[in-house]
């Protein structure tokens, strides 16, 4: 390791230099593109001269597309085009060469690992959004009433900044197992043995190990739910609450019967947003169990077939299934957004 040190230092400088140049090229390229393209448009259709009126209209029709072009091109290549290619690939063989009809889908339905993944994904879909939303609602209600509420919010919100891989390490330490007779260094086993239980390898326990993975995501997502719901709670008109106090409602009644019904819309938004995150959950499963011991999920199954199975047909089919599961929420979102713009 002594020889490459100089070369490595140079490589590092070069790498940072390349990043800096890219930023400059990206930013100035962008500004340059917009400036030049607008300039050209104004040259072709000058807003003066004999045909000024017609020119202004034409330039006005074209200009929005100049503004949109780079974004549309990137979105087209990086998000729209892949959807079609994936559909195409899912009807082809492992190398994407021969058309195989619905073979991949038939194989998928009969595959034990796929069924396991579907089942686990459904469990994730029920448990994580429900638990995160509920805990987020409790956290929002509680932190809104105390003086150090902002500090408390920041602490509960903090896991949002932590990567899934980092969170996986954090929680693996909690689930750590030591054989009987040794001192337990994982909190869960320490508590469990102190209560008289037998130390467990929690992540390999069939049936419940998935829940230990789900808890990690709940820990991360609760802060998100709390922030959104807290804003919604604060937006509730004071009069409704004052009226219920006058009518003699208890604090719990006020919360569940007056406040919660008024923020149903927001709760639904939080729920669906977390649902989308859950459908794509990958890092946590990959790094904590890699889908072993009955914890496989769709996104990791897809990754398995992509890199370990080297089968673009089956991998794409798994990806399409994820897409199909996301689609209802996508349509719901689009409808809501359309309603709002109108």
């Amino acid at each position: 390791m002594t020889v490459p040190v100089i070369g490595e230092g140079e490589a590092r400088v070069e790498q940072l230099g390349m990043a800096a140049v890219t930023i400059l090229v990206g930013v100035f390229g962008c500004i340059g593109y917009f400036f030049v393209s607008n300039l050209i448009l104004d040259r072709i259709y000058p807003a003066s001269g004999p045909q000024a009126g017609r020119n202004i209209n034409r330039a006005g029709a074209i200009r929005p597309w100049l503004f949109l072009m780079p974004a549309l091109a990137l979105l087209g290549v990086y998000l729209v085009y892949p959807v079609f290619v994936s559909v195409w690939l899912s009807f082809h063989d492992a190398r994407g060469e021969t058309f195989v009809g619905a073979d991949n889908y038939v194989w998928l339905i009969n595959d034990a690992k796929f069924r396991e993944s579907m089942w686990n994904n459904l469990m994730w879909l029920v448990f994580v959004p429900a638990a995160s939303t509920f805990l987020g609602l409790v956290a929002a209600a509680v932190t809104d009433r105390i003086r150090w509420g902002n500090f408390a919010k920041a602490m509960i919100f903090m896991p949002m900044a932590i990567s899934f891989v980092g969170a996986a390490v954090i929680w693996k330490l909690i689930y750590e197992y030591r054989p009987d007779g040794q001192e337990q260094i994982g909190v869960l086993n320490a508590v469990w043995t102190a209560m008289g239980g037998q130390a467990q390898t929690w992540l390999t326990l069939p049936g419940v190990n998935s829940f230990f993975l789900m808890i990690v995501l709940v820990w991360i997502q609760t802060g998100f739910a709390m922030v959104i719901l807290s804003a919604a709670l604060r937006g509730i008109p004071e009069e409704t609450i004052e009226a219920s106090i006058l009518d003699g409602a208890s604090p719990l009644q006020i919360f569940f019967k007056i406040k919660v019904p008024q923020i149903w819309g927001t709760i639904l938004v939080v729920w669906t947003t977390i649902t989308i995150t859950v459908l794509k959950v990958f890092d946590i499963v990959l790094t904590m169990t890699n889908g072993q011991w009955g914890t496989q999920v769709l996104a990791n199954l897809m990754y398995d077939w992509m890199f370990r199975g080297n089968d673009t047909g089956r991998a794409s089919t798994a990806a399409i299934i994820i897409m199909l599961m996301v689609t209802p929420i996508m349509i719901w979102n689009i409808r809501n957004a359309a309603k709002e713009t109108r």
Partner: protein
Amino acid sequence: MDNIVGTKSRLVWVVNLSALALVLLWLFPTFGLLVSSFRDRDQITASGWWKAMFPAEQTLQYRAPGAGDAVDENGVFVISGNVFEGGRGSVKSFGTSARDPGAFPAGETVPADDGADLTVLQNGDFRLTSATEFEGRRGMRIFVTSVTPPRFTFENYGRVLGAEGLGRAFLNTMTVSIPATVIPILVAAFAAYALAWMEFPGRALLVAGVVGLLVVPLQLALIPLLKLHNEIGLGKSYLGIWLAHTGFGLPLAVYLLRNYMVGLPREIIESARVDGATDFQIFLKIILPLSFPALASFAIFQFLWTWNDLLVALVFLGNTQDQLVMTGQLKELMGSRGGDWEILATSAFVTIAVPLVVFFAMQKYLVRGLLAGSVK
């Protein structure tokens, strides 16, 4: 607000205590990792991290050197040394048999086997003396109950950043995330302006399209894009991952910025138009500066997302030393160093340190972005 007589003070207590419980519960996991990263390997295997703050009491078994190391001091044979063998600690009590390892307090001189006398001092120094010559190659066993004070070390950090390659990975992560954060901002801002303030047919459709693309799973894009990158010669390169992150981040960027720009006062833009400003000027001189909060929100999102991302990096970058990012490195360490918690905890903390700093410094913008970004 809830001043129902008599119940108020109790309610305040309940609320404060449950908030405290929630906060402690949420901090506990991360705090455990932080504490562990400052403990050395032996400490981590010896006790749970929650015991790190207290002096640890443990029973050690030490075997004294054999007869060969005995020294003749004026007719008395002496074997001496330190039971901690250079380590630190303080002896509370000692003993000569496994049945009663804490029989005598430190400092006493007690009879041991074969007519020898044993003294163990508090600092661990021991002295075996005998009038007759010692016999046998194997020395005597000494049991000590020692109290080790809480001890923390920065060694793990040095080791992880150097030998374990995390320093290089840190640089790689920075190389990925900074351009991937900066580049989409302008591209998205221009598009958002068009979608917010320019009239053209198909605008509503495009907005709907952006909302739809917000939730398209990344998994769908991986294989086609990897193929594309290989075909056009990008392969696994930083340029490839910058483009990928830019593409994946654009829907959120456009959506957030458009929603923000739509809310800007119409009069400002109209009057600028009347004064003869072009769209390009309006955008650059009025909209962009006014949209700073939304730009900041998106920048934080994108930075956290690209810094913390594992999947895109696994697919679009190689796993050679000059391309492996920190999350990837951490994943590899979890595989190869599964039980070495001092390495894992420290590496994990290095990877989450920057996002945590950004998070606490810019929390305001992050919250604003979340509120604007969740589809209502």
